[in-house]
């Protein structure tokens, strides 16, 4: 009887696992089938569906620009926060900060976008010029959104180092900062890299937060104050009404995005394993 139960529950779990995997596979196949016919046609510089132009290069550049901006702002801040929490924050402060950061990760992304629209965009417009709807605005909003990922994973990487690294280094007369900089950060390198890559992956795939603050102009940007459109926002804006080739081009956009995120995530896996 017991043996039967064991077998049965094993089967049930297997079936559940299989079904979730097959849903994933189905989605992938669906996107590929729908997008594949247009995949060859999306390499151009100009996107104008009404006139049959389906180049997504401006969106690729937009995505890269906004993501890079988010990384430039978010990564140093995130790593510094992680160092502070792991090494300097008193226990009480840590116990307040940690759940607060988790909470930050739970805020719906449209709220970040809305906040960016209310505060970041006008700030840029008033102080730096332009419309405010810009790469810079998108980068700031995304940087804040990826902070929780970067902070929590880097912090774990630092805290899981053997304690004797630190004691040993301090016993050799190094200062706390020297120990962090020359020993702990290099030793936690792979974990921190993974944190950064996962954060970037999140930024690449984000739609709602940036749709509100980028201005969504389809053009190759000439400064960080230019309005751009990302791959995700392009799909988000047009999928609702697109038909025919236009729709297929959006699916092809999806394939490109999918591949980009797959590459980023496998990079993260690779970095963690290499350790």
């Amino acid at each position, binding site marked *: 009887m017991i043996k039967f139960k064991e077998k049965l529950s094993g089967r049930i779990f297997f079936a559940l696992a299989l079904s979730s995997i097959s849903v994933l596979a189905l989605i992938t196949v669906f996107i590929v089938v729908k997008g594949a016919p247009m995949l060859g046609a999306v390499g151009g510089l100009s996107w104008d569906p009404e006139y049959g132009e389906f180049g997504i290069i401006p969106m690729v550049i937009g995505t890269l620009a906004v993501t890079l901006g988010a990384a430039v702002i978010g990564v140093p801040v995130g790593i510094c926060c992680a160092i502070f929490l792991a090494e300097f924050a008193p226990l009480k402060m840590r116990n307040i900060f940690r759940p607060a950061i988790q909470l930050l990760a739970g805020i719906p992304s449209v709220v970040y976008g809305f906040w960016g629209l209310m505060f970041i965009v006008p700030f840029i417009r008033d102080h730096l010029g332009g419309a405010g709807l810009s790469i810079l605005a998108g980068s700031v909003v995304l940087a804040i959104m990826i902070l929780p990922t970067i902070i929590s994973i880097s912090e774990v990487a630092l805290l899981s180092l053997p304690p004797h690294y630190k004691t040993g280094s*301090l016993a050799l*007369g190094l200062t706390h900062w020297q120990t962090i900089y020359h020993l702990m950060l290099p030793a936690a390198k792979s974990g921190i890299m993974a944190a950064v890559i996962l954060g970037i992956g999140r930024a690449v795939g984000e739609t709602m937060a940036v749709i509100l603050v980028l201005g969504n102009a389809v053009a190759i940007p000439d400064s960080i104050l230019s309005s751009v459109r990302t791959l995700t926002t392009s799909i988000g804006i047009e999928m609702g009404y697109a038909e025919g080739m236009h729709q297929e081009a959006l699916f092809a956009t999806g394939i490109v995005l999918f591949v980009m995120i797959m590459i980023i995530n496998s990079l993260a896996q690779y970095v963690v394993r290499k350790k």
Partner: protein
Amino acid sequence: MNKISIERLNFFYKDKQVIRDLSLEIEANKILSVFGPSNSGITTFLRSLNRLYDLVPEARMEGLILLDGKDIHAKDVSLTELRRRVGMVFDVPTPLPLSIFDNVAYGPRLGGVKSRAKLMETVEEALRMAALWDEVQNRLDIPAMSLSGGQQQRLCVARVLALKPEVVLLDRPCSGLDPISTAKIEESLCELKKRFTIVIAPHNVQQAGRISDRAAFMLSGELVEEDSAQMIFSNPKNSRTNDYITGRFG
């Protein structure tokens, strides 16, 4: 003047007293063994001499520790300098995640030695003193973690010696080592005392007998007696010391 003078040292973790009223003079260029049963506070005592317990928030110390006549808790004492002058080897090997060379060069390099040649010289000298040079001279750039436990421990000794300290604290440097590595370390210690003052928590009473000039017996945080090693191990004044070294308790 003695190298280190300790006056009425009391040590607490939170409310728990770990060292009671300990006063002790440590002579320069001698090997002092501090021995006793487990949980006597020996590690705590050693770590208090270079203020490593500063890392433990709930630790508290009373009393006076003088290094060359100067209070190590004085405001103008630099912790960095203190820990370079009073080096420490821990009771488990603690190699850093670096190459053999960098483990030894780490302290001097960050202490300001920049020239590669000078570093190389320091590293070689330190590894020779720790009786490890012959075994590793051809593979200085492999990770220290790939050495055997005994080699790692000697590397940790070398790492401390490379700082050119004045006092070397060794907390059971031979626990977990085979007799040959142990013999090597003991041999180098007798050589090293010409240049350094050594305070060691020995592996056992026999080891204390083999290597020490002076010996101190600690029990439950109290210093029971301190004397020349010869006296302690042949003719201790205190009966508790006698009981311990003859193996009647502990």
